[in-house]
């Protein structure tokens, strides 16, 4: 109730200001809760670069420095205010924080969440509180495949394509492969990634044989036995959805033993460790970025702007989670502004933003994004893989292949698991 | 008095700790309503005997009967419920509860109304300490409270393990007077372990003299204390040898 009133009054205020011409300093901003991991294992690889992405967007959008079609200040002329929340602490903590943001901090909408568990838990709460919520990173397809949502959007692709794409790339690059192996963390992310990869690979090349599937627990840290087991089983290709400290630890331990030189390794989140030269990635390692993000983002004016703005402000390269955050914020902006236009130039209410967001196609630094699944609430995008090659001490990518969304994502109404099982047909 | 009834009967009890015999062969009958004093040097087997009777230790050999039922090796709580209770050389109290709450807890376990707690404290002349925490009471009071807890269940047999050890010698007789008054009133069969021969002489009907895990002599106090072997092995020559044994006990209590 009070929320609706707030929105309407904000809308009226915005409309009056809009009539007066330029945005003014005392205008009530659009308040957005930004939720990313600031502690725990997912902070370093995902949470921190994503938050940096949000910080860059906030400054650039409020200064009106983003290129067209995003050149208006904030959202439709109204400046933005971000409230940053740490995503750690578990679902119970996150549900509490989400309610606090809405009930007490009075945010207008929420953008965030890397953990699939958190996304699953937040979605019904967002519905209950009628709060527009955009997921920027979490991978599980269950969000829109198991449930329908009205207030929840995911303007980035879900995780199925990461591993389907990985399987396709493996087959493309090694058409005569006979064996495969995997090392994934023993929790939902690792289990789902492995299931999708193995399922897709078996569809593409039914005669491949598994040598060993290692599932150490999250944060195990010591992988020497697993590395021995993988090397002893001598597979043609190795799949891993490791990330963050676990991924770096695996590579550090594999390096002096030559595992990754010996066995080409697919790292589905590998892009996150390509930036700061902490770790030498062996030639031949197959790197993914969970979409056309980061190093695989296509050349465009938007991409150049984002990369430069990010480098200026953060003093480093944007990683794929930074891109996904930027894409989510810009998608929301696109929906907001479309809704505003549909509303005769007045600030839209939540329902109007939702109507505009559903099925929207927008551009981002990572290229074109279509809200094609989940009744227009779930984006699809291409997936990109490339092979690492160190040239003069600099990491480059060769054999970069882009798989369009139609090939790597199930069509509307089909569950990812069934789609893979049934041959990934369209 | 009518024909004495044997209430507790121990047959050939043996208990060994490693190479040491704590009890070699203890056979004894305890008559109903008697008060027995258990004497003997340290390590003679008195406390082991008490511990076996109350189920803390299981004898390696032999049998214990109580009122015609065998109770050998039964756990303490069962033996307690059958009617044999005890006090301890180091009082076993609930130190963070008040004296009153100590007794109430005991009453609760036994299933008696808690209101009786004050009467029981009064009976032991402990009423002034009712609201004091048991952990900070003086040793003599703790000893009495320990016995009060043992009496809550209306036992038929009460075993007292050194009721006056650690108590100032001037208070000894006062404490024993109180205890024995209650014991006699309640017509409880009692046994007490004691090093002070004067206390034994004054309060027991019968004396069991332990030596090296066996009973050296048993009988009326005067009789046993005149026994040659008892004099030689346990009491030593009157008055001189009783003291060191006692001092040893106090030392033992200090760090246990």
């Amino acid at each position, binding site marked *: 109730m009070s929320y609706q009133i707030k929105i309407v009054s904000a809308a009226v205020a915005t409309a009056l200001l809009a009539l007066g011409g330029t945005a003014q300093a005392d205008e009530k901003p659009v308040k957005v809760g930004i939720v990313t991991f600031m*502690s725990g294992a997912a902070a*370093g690889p995902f949470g921190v670069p994503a938050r940096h992405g949000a910080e860059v967007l906030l400054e650039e959008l409020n200064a009106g420095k983003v290129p067209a079609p995003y050149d208006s200040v904030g959202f439709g002329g109204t400046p933005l205010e971000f409230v940053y929340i740490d995503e750690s602490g578990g679902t119970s903590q996150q549900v509490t924080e989400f309610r606090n943001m809405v009930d007490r901090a009075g945010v207008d909408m929420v953008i965030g969440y890397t953990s699939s568990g958190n996304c699953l838990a937040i979605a019904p709460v967002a519905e209950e509180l009628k709060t527009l919520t955009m997921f920027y990173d979490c991978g599980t397809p269950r969000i829109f495949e198991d449930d329908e949502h009205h207030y929840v959007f995911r303007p980035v692709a879900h995780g199925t394509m990461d591993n389907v794409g990985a399987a396709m790339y493996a087959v493309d690059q090694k058409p005569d492969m006979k064996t495969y192996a995997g090392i994934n963390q023993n929790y939902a992310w690792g289990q789902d990634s492995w299931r999708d990869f193995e399922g897709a690979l078996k569809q593409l090349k039914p005669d491949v044989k598994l040598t060993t599937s290692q599932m150490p627990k999250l*944060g195990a840290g010591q992988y*020497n*036995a697993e590395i021995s087991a993988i090397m002893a089983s001598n597979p043609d290709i190795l799949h891993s959805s490791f990330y963050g*400290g676990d991924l770096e630890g695996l590579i*550090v331990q594999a390096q*002096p033993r030559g595992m990754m030189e010996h066995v080409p390794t697919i790292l589905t989140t590998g892009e996150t460790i390509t930036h700061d030269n902490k770790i030498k990635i062996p030639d031949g390692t197959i790197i993914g970025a969970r979409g056309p993000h980061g190093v695989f983002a296509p050349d465009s004016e938007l991409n150049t702007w984002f990369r430069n703005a990010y480098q200026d402000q953060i003093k480093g390269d944007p990683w794929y989670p930074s891109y996904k955050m930027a894409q989510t914020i810009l998608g929301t902006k696109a929906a907001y502004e479309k809704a505003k236009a549909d509303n005769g130039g007045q600030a839209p209410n939540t329902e109007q933003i939702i109507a505009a967001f559903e099925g929207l196609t927008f551009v981002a630094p990572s290229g074109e994004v279509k809200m094609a699944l989940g009744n227009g609430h779930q984006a699809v995008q291409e997936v990109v893989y490339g092979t690492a090659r160190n040239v003069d001490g600099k990491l480059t990518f060769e054999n970069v292949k882009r798989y369009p969304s139609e090939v790597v994502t199930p069509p509307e109404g089909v569950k990812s698991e069934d789609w893979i099982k049934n041959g990934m047909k369209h | 008095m009518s024909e004495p009834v044997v209430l507790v009967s121990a047959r050939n009890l043996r208990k060994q700790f490693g190479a040491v015999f704590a009890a070699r062969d203890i056979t004894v009958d305890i008559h109903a309503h008697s008060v027995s004093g258990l004497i003997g040097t340290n390590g003679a087997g008195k406390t082991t005997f008490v511990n076996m009777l109350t189920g*803390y230790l299981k004898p390696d050999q032999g049998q214990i009967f109580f009122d015609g039922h065998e109770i050998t090796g039964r756990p303490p709580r069962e033996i307690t419920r059958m009617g044999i209770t005890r006090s301890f050389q180091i009082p076993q109290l609930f130190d963070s509860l008040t004296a009153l709450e100590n007794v109430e807890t005991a009453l609760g376990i036994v299933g008696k109304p808690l209101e009786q707690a004050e009467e029981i404290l009064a009976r032991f002349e402990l009423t002034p300490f009712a609201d004091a925490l048991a952990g900070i009471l003086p040793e003599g009071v703790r000893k009495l409270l320990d016995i009060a807890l043992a009496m809550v269940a209306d036992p038929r047999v009460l075993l007292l393990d050194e009721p006056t050890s650690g108590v100032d010698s001037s208070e000894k007789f006062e404490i024993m007077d109180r205890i024995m008054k209650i014991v006699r009133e309640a017509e409880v069969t009692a046994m007490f372990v004691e090093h002070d021969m004067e206390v034994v002489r004054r309060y027991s009907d019968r004396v069991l003299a332990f030596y090296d895990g066996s009973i050296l002599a048993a009988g009326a106090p005067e009789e046993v204390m005149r026994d040659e072997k008892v004099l030689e092995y346990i009491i030593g020559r009157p008055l001189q040898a009783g003291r060191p044994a006692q001092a040893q006990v106090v030392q033992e209590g200090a*760090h246990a």
Partner: protein
Amino acid sequence: MLMLPAAIIDGIMYAAWLFLVAVGLTLIYGVMKILNLAHGAFYTLGAYVAATFVGFWLAGDYNPYYSYLLLLLAGVIGGLVLGVLVERGILRRFYKEDQVVLLLVTYAIFLILEDVVKMIWGVEPYVISQPYGLLGSFNIGLLYYPNYNFVILGAAILSGVGLALFLKLTRPGKLLRVVIHDREISMALGINVQRYFLVTFVAGSILAALGGALTAPTISVAPEIGVEVIVLAFAVIVIGGLGSLPGAALGALIVGLVRSFAVHYFPEVELFSIYAVMAVVLIVRPMGLFAAAEPRKI
């Protein structure tokens, strides 16, 4: 084939590492009867100090072989400073409390130290992998093992044997055994128990920090690395028997070999939880494999 020797080597190396990270925990428990939940945080801190020292050294283009010395130094300095601070600043006030209250106290210390680490070093991982590969490697067929593993193995053996000899042969070691056996008696004998506690806690802290420092080159140093370590160290010493040095060694070998053989032979049968092993051992032998029974006095 390759599998059996690989499984044994992996198991032993993992066991050596486990022992190294667990020995401080069992030492502290043995002497002080404190199960130090903050042990993992000491490990983390050692790893961070090492990462800082070595990172600085390598950035300066100095002789990389000295970085091994820096690892050692990081463990000793990190453990010493933290151990003294925690023992003198916090733990000492709680010695009169129950064992279980002390468990909560160390849990609180664990929570505090986790945040302290984040405040000092942030959440982004540090990688200082150069010392790991620098010593070359040996191989069995296809399988290459970095020689750095011998550094861990050596440190484990040295700390274990060293401690055992110290307890057995030296005068302070013998006195320490008295403290372990009976705190009250040793106080009555005039042994300065407080000082032995400080020294023991600091020694345990140094061992934990050293474990972290020596592990640092093989991992990515992140704030949460200690959580897994405390779990493993815990399991190792519970299985072996709390406070027992040979118990810790046996526990480490059991956990190490079981894990290694599971990884090599039954990866599809998910490695049963280490907690299950722990529970089974406690059910069968309620005090662990090597613990001395405590006499009860009445």
